[in-house]
């Protein structure tokens, strides 16, 4: 899993930015970290826009990564609860698909 870590402060994100939005001065550096993390929160989506309607109901979770301050939004294959340990199963059409460990 690629994350972007500020070289001046604690900020980290899964998406790159021109400058660190937290300290305003640092540059974000690409890092490779484990995809493993903990479910920070989630929702089970029953009504979706046309492009995802065929997947309903599906679960979208916010994962707090173990090796970074960054969180990642992922779809999970199956239900999850806050505190569940999960890891990346595969990437599908640009989406991270996580599964419970």
């Amino acid at each position, binding site marked *: 899993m690629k994350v972007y870590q500020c070289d001046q402060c604690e900020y980290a994100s899964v*998406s790159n930015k021109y400058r660190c939005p937290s300290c305003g001065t640092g540059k974000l550096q690409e890092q490779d970290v484990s995809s493993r993390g903990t479910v920070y929160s989630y*929702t089970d*989506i029953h009504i*979706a*826009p046309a492009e995802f309607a065929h997947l309903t109901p*599906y679960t979208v979770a*916010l994962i707090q990564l173990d090796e970074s301050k960054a969180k990642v*939004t992922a779809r999970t294959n199956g239900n999850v609860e806050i505190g569940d340990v999960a890891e990346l199963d595969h990437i599908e059409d640009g989406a*991270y698909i996580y599964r419970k460990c």
Partner: protein
Amino acid sequence: MTNVYIEGIGMTKFGKFVDKSMKQLLVEASIEALEDAGNPKVDAVFVGNFMGGSIGNQEILGALVANELGLGYIPTAKVEGACASGGIALRQGIMGILSGEYDTVLIAGVEKMKHASTADVTQAINAAMDNDSNEKQAGLTFPGFFGVLANRYFYETDATKEHLAMIALKNRENALHNPLAQFQKPTTIAEIMEARIITSPLGLFDCSPTTDGAAALVITRKKGAIHIRSSAQSSGPTQMQDADDVLSLPAVRESGRLAYERAGVGPEDIDVVEIHDCFSMTEMLAIEELGFFNKREGWLAVEQGRTKATGDKPVNTSGGLLSRGHPIGATGVAQLYQLVQQLRGIAPNQVEHARLALAQNLGGTGSYSTVHILERL
């Protein structure tokens, strides 16, 4: 202090109007606002609108208004900021007057959504997410974002789904007295709790509806009874995964802080509030971010009835987005319509002796927020 005043207000009924065009709704609200203001000369028009192009195939809304009303060859613009389009349109008008360029500006907001299918509207609304992100591709939706926040809020506090239901019920009860509101059928906590789930834990009553409608304001530098004491706008993270604290909406907090600072007042001074309750959970977070209640304690205030029209901090006396309705581009303008009525002493759910009022309008998943503080002189 802005030294800009609201001279006139207008608003259509909110609901389903398949036989009226977007232009007709815009013109109806604008004429009412102009008549209320005594038909002053208008120097510019700003229209708040989000999906007129994508689901209505209609743009050039500013020029349409100027032309239909015969306002002359004045400058106009449409302003887009997702659900904050109306609040940002108002702010652009205020900035235009403050710059010295205009004396009097017509602000209008409009949306027509009821003619399109739910899937098409949801798809169009999703244009306010970052298309170029793994988050959008994961299938996150707007209701989904607030569902994720709600589950975390329940995890960190003693709040439950019933507290969200109390917010939805309060706003429905307020709407029952508002003749322009979309929903005027009474409901109960039980009905709200048992309604079908849209995105857990949010059910049908926790989500604002699709709505047709328009609202308008005439603002001017000429001193009047309703003073716009301050205007502020902020941006926030465009992705949930970039939030520092998921239970915080930084754009709301920062726009509130700036608005209080510029007005020289604090949350304790505000008598009546219109907040962007696109979801019941959004109202919960906004009452905390605007400083009315401590962080992670908004649910206690809700439980104690403090945000009811009869409470010490009345929130959404119009019925809010949840029950007055949410014609996206009109919402930020409709909030001011209700607050001006409050300050004039003629509002549905009138708050006694209201002098200071605050409106907060949100766009995207916390991407934009405007706050306006009004004062009755």
